[in-house]
Structure formats: C-alpha cells, structure tokens
C-alpha cells in the first residue's frame, strides 16, 4: 500500500462510490457492512413506527367493548399488517442490521463475505416494504388473514379482484424470504470462513454464536415457508388445491409448512437478543460472562431443538394425541438451554459492580420480561392449558412479552450500547432513562392484563368483546399509548445525539471486544491490520490483552 499524501490532490471522478463520508452514503448502494447495518436499522425503525401506529388504532378500537371505531374488515387488515410489519419489517431487518454492523467487527473481518449480495439483500427490504404498503390502495384492501395467512381464509377473494391484498402479501413475504436467505448465506460464510487469525470458535463473542445459530435456522427452516407460500400462491391464483380438502388437498398441511418455519423464526428473532444480553451484562457488571462456553453452545442447542417443536401451534388443529404429547415434550425441552442462559446471565450480574446506564437498564428489564414470557411459554407448551387458552389474549400477551418485552427492548439496549461506536457520538443518558421507564411501564401495563383477559376467554383477532373484559382492555390500551409515547424520547435522543452529542471515545464503556479497539465510527474496512487474537472474549477483571497487535489495528 503506497502512502501518497492526499493534500492538494484533486480526487479523480472515479466509479467508486464507496468512501464518500457523508449522509449520502446511507442512500447509496454501499457495500460497506457498517453502512448497510445502519441502513437496515433506520429503515426497519421507520416500519416499526408504521406498525406501531397500526397497533395504536387497534388499541383505540379495543378500549371499548363494541366495534365502534373502525370497520371490522379494516380491523382485520390492521392486525394482519401490524403483525406482518413488526415481524418482517421491524424485528427481522433490525436484527440483521445489528448483526451486519457487529459481526465483521467482532470477528475481526474487514467486511462480510459477499458485500454486494449484502447490499442487494438490504435493498429488497424497502422494496417489499413499499410493495406491502401499496396493498392499501387495492380495491380488495390489504391482506386480512392474520400474519400466519391460514387457508381457507387466505384464499378467499370476496371482492373478486385480479390482484388481492393477499397476493401482494405473499409476494412481499417471498421477497423477504429471498432477502433473508441471501443474508443467511452471507452470515454463515462470513462467520465460518472470515474470522481473524487466532479468533477460534471459542474466542468468538457469544453474540456471534447466537447470530450463527439464528442464521443456520434461517437456512434450514425458511425454505419450508417458501415452499408453503408458493403452494398458497398457486392455490390463490392458479386454481390448484394443495390446501383445499374438497379436491384432495389438506389445509393443515399449510399450517405445518408455516410453523415449521415460523416457530424456529421466533428463535431467529430472539437468539441475537440473547447474544446482546451476553455482551451487555459483562460490560456493565465488570465480570466475565458466566459459563461462556456453555452459553455459546446452548445457542446451537436451541437451534437444534427449534425445528422439532412446531406442532405446539397446532394442538387444536386435529392433531392426534400421541403427536401432541411428543411436541409437548420437545417444546418443554427448549426451556433447558434457555434456562442455562438465564442462569448464566444472573450469575454474571451476581455481585458484579453494576453500572445502571441505559443499555443495562433495558437489558435488565428485558431479562425480567423474558423470564415471565418463558414461564407462560412453558404453560402454553402444555396441551391442556393450550387447549384452554388457544386463540385467546393469553397467547397474544405471551408473545408480546417476547417480541416487545424481550426482543424490542433488547434491541433498544443494543442500539444505546453501540450508538457511540456507530455514530462517534454519545447519546443523552437522561433521555435514555426516560425512554426506559416509559417503555418498561408501558409494556407491562399493555401486555400483562392481556393474560388475565385471555385466561377468562377473550378471543384474539375480534374487534368487539364481552364487557366483562373492559377493565383489562382499558389498562392495555393505556399501556399501549404509553408505549407509543415512549418512542418520542428515543427518536429525540437518537437524532439529537447523532447531530450534537458529545464526541465518543473509541471505548466509552471500557468494554472488551475487537469493535472497541478501532475508532468510533470505525473506518471503511474496519482494521488497518487484521487483529491477531490471543485471548477469549470476556477478560473482565483480568489483564490479558485481547489482541497481539492492538496498535496496528488503527490507521495512522
């Protein structure tokens, strides 16, 4: 590499859009994994706001027992789009964005294995996001069959349209699937083949283990949904009868396809957040992650078990008794590797020197809510309880404790923790704490009463309900609006801090990890010289250096 002084040299007009260092790079087809990571995060957050607005409408409708605010058809479209947007356009892309930013830095690589594939996978997200939004302008309206799109509901076409909202929905989910598979190929290849010298598997941060486990699930299970979606599309548009019992098909078959992917997909969503916990707890407790190797391997165990549990969503779908028993047992098994992780996190915090900054607060809150969701999860795995609360708000409450209480809260923790690294600025701690308090109270106020209503039999996906559930629903709606408000300090904080925050040092949290050894934000291609890793990832309380060549990593 030649060192030509840059002063006085006019930069030639070259076909090399990469290194422009301004806001425009975030709107370009950049192949830098850090730019792509932030593109993912910001895009998905925009969709998070849209999905959140839809949920505000849902909560406003449900604040009174009769269906008085919006039309029932529109209500169906509301919860369908809310679920679809939150899962396919918020959780998935935001987690992929975080992993995009962090994985190459954490394993000591200069970029992902396939940078252009990476960029292509990202640009599909706004494409299918906008595609999905266009279904609002169709005569049929949007898809209304819920996020799981079970036939025969999803193959109905009451308005007799050529292109239905459901058709657009399947198309959008299919593009999302292509994007996810491209991402999975990229992540698995990157983690397996591009680790820095000395970065053995058992020196990888636990976060990287969780991303690897999650992306292996994507590779193995997502094709099932693709196959199911293709057959559903043929049923809806080409006159086939895969899921039509009148012509020899089987509607339950779709449920198998759907849940064979969509249950493991829950672990795709939650595993990286487990990784975030494993990164953040040691930093803010000043202690090594307890049982690192076991925690790392337990992620893979979760991946393995995850593809053997899907029928627990189908206890009430005419599933024979022996099969229910089998899947009840396998589902409860998930609690073992997950329990290992929870114990490890608690043991990590135990007697640590806790520093209650915003990321730590979000992690503690998320862990608390995750334990609660885990308890209701094991309850739901049990056949008799599940038959009783099947399709009620108990289920809705349970999974929102996971998708909001755990995943979204954990995502906020990660955003605060790595914000200084990503932007080179510190965020405002006070606003962060306000955000946490509002979000924590809002989440519990919104989703805890749902369990009660569900246990008493309030059915989900219906816009009116019996007045006996009114109290729970008023509480839930108030909590929901509080949650909506809680994003305001977050947005103010992110935008304000990025523009005017205090400049961040390389390692504001005194954390251990390769990403903290380079400047904030890291330069294009991350490392001047590839790091030579000489010790494990959580050396808190020890004085072993992480790399042999710390001084050579940074330029200049």
């Amino acid at each position, binding site marked *: *590499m*030649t*060192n*030509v002084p*840059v002063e006085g*040299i006019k*930069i*030639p007009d*070259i*076909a*090399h859009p*990469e*290194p422009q*260092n301004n806001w425009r790079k975030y709107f370009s087809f950049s192949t830098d994994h850090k730019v792509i990571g932030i593109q993912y995060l910001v895009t998905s957050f925009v969709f998070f706001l849209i999905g959140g607005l839809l949920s505000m409408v849902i909560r406003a409708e449900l604040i009174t027992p009769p269906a008085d605010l919006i039309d029932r058809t529109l209500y169906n479209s509301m919860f369908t789009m809310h679920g679809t947007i939150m899962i396919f356009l918020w959780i998935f892309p935001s987690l992929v964005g975080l992993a995009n930013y962090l994985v190459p830095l954490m394993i000591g690589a*200069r*970029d992902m*294995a*396939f*940078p*252009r*594939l990476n960029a292509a996978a990202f640009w599909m997200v706004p494409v299918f996001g906008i595609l999905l939004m266009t279904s609002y302008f169709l005569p049929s309206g949007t898809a209304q069959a819920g996020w799981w799109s079970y036939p025969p509901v999803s193959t109905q076409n009451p308005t007799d349209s050529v292109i239905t909202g459901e058709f657009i929905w399947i198309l959008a989910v299919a593009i999302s699937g292509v994007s996810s*598979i491209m991402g*999975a*190929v*990229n992540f*698995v*290849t990157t983690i*397996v*083949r*591009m680790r820095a010298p000395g970065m053995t598997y058992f020196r990888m941060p636990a976060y990287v283990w969780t991303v690897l486990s999650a992306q292996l699930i994507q*590779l*193995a*299970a*997502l*094709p*099932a949904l*693709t*196959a*199911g979606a*293709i*057959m559903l599309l*043929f049923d809806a548009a*080409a*006159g*086939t*009868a*895969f899921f039509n019992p009148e*012509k*020899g*098909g*089987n509607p339950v*078959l779709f449920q198998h*396809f759907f849940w*064979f992917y969509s249950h493991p997909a829950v672990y795709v969503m939650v595993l990286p957040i487990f990784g975030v916990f494993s990164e953040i707890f040691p930093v803010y407790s000043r202690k090594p992650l307890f049982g690192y190797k076991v925690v790392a391997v337990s992620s893979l165990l979760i991946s393995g078990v995850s593809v053997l549990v899907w029928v627990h969503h189908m206890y009430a779908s005419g599933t024979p008794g022996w099969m229910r028993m089998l899947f009840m047992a396998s589902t409860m098994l998930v609690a073992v590797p997950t329990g290992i992780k929870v114990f490890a996190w608690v043991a990590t915090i135990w007697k640590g020197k806790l520093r209650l900054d915003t990321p730590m607060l979000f992690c503690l809150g998320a862990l608390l809510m995750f334990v609660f969701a885990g308890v209701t999860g094991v309850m739901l795995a049990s056949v008799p309880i599940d038959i009783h609360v099947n399709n009620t708000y108990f289920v809705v409450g349970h999974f929102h404790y996971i998708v909001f209480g755990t995943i979204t809260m954990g995502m906020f923790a990660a955003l605060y923790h790595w914000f200084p690294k990503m932007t080179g600025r510190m965020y405002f701690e006070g606003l962060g704490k306000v955000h946490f308090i509002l979000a924590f109270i809002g989440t519990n106020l919104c989703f805890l009463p749902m369990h009660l209503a569900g246990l008493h039999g309030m059915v989900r996906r219906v816009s009116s309900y019996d007045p006996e559930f009114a109290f729970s629903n008023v509480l839930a709606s108030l909590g929901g609006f509080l949650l909506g408000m809680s994003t305001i300090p977050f947005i103010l904080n992110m935008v304000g801090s990025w523009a005017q925050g205090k400049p961040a040092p390389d390692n504001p949290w005194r954390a251990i990890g390769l990403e903290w050894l380079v400047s904030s934000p890291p*330069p*294009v*291609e991350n490392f001047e010289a590839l790091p030579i890793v000489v010790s494990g990832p959580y050396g808190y309380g020890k004085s072993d250096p992480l790399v042999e060549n710390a001084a050579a990593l940074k*330029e200049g």
Partner: protein
Amino acid sequence: MTDATAPTGAAIAPQVTTEVQANDHAHPDLRVWGLLTFLVSESLMFGGFFAAYLMVRGAASQWPPEGTEVELLLPAINTVILVSSSFVIHLGDVAIKKNDIGGLRKWYAVTALMGAVFLVGQAYEYATLGYGLSSNIFANCFYLMTGFHGLHVFIGLLLILGVLWRSRRAGHYSDHKHTGVEMAEIYWHFVDIIWIVLFALLYILTQFS
C-alpha cells in the same frame, strides 16, 4: 467478486485518497462456500415439496387418480440425458484444470445442449399429457414439482451459457482461476440430484399403486 473490483483499484492507484486505498485489501473468494450453503437451503425447499407430495399421496385412495397417469418412456430418456450430462460437465472441469480452454468450451457446450434437450423434452411431455396444472391434486403436485425443477434446469443452463460466454476471452479461466466454472458444475449436479428424487417419486413409485 474480487476480479471485478481489482482492476478498478489498480487503474486508479496513484491518485486515490487513503479511504479508497482502504478498499483495496484483498477480499477472500468464498463464492463456492456461499453457493454450497445456498444449495443446502434450496434442497430443503424441494424437501418441503416432497413432504407435501407424500402427505397428499398418503391421504389419497388412488394414486395417481384416474385420468392423470404419467408417461414413462420420454421421462426415462430425459433422465438418462440429464444424468449423463452431469458426467459430461465434469469433463469440462477436468479440462480447465489442465488449462485446456478448448476442452472446457466443448464439454460445456455439449452439457448445455443436453440441458436444452431435457427442457424441450419436458415441454413436449407437458403438451402431450392431456391434463393441466389444476386438473387434480396429483396434477397440482406434478406440475409444481417438475415445473420448479425445470426452472432450476433453466437457471443452470444460463449459468453454463454464462461460462461459455466468458470463456471467449483468453485468460478469463485458467487452471488456477476457474471458480465460475466450478460453481456452474456444482449447480448442475444439484439440479441432477433433485431430478433423480423427483423421477423416483413421480414416475417410478406411481407405477405400483
């Protein structure tokens, strides 16, 4: 990926800023790895179709239902053509490892021809079967599975033609630089293996019910 970015960097090297230079670190070529991971995923999608087929078949009283029997002779010939093309394409790979561009071009051209014959044969089969996609549940499965496989054959054919097109330029492929050739070959083997399973499920196992 590397071969596309490298010349740009080399051509502008004297005048670039430090940031542009930072882009010139060698990037490892992991395309074969990526393709293999992708094919694992692809095969699981076909696995999904196979599973659906077997479940529908298990529930049917007669399989295939009356009026939607399958042809056997033409698909058997097609199978022989596709399976042997997998050996032919390997000869091309052997040739390029000996730096024999002519051999590569010859064997890849033969493979492309065999792939095209397979597709034409399949189109002829579709046209003469006498039933269509939506006739009954067997026809649904038959056309979905063979059609999807045919799409993969078509993509494999395009990859082979792409190799042929690029091999016009002397030095594009050589004994130490032929990842693209290998990727097309791997994909072609994949298409072949899927077909063998499909042939067993749709044509052979339907003869004994």
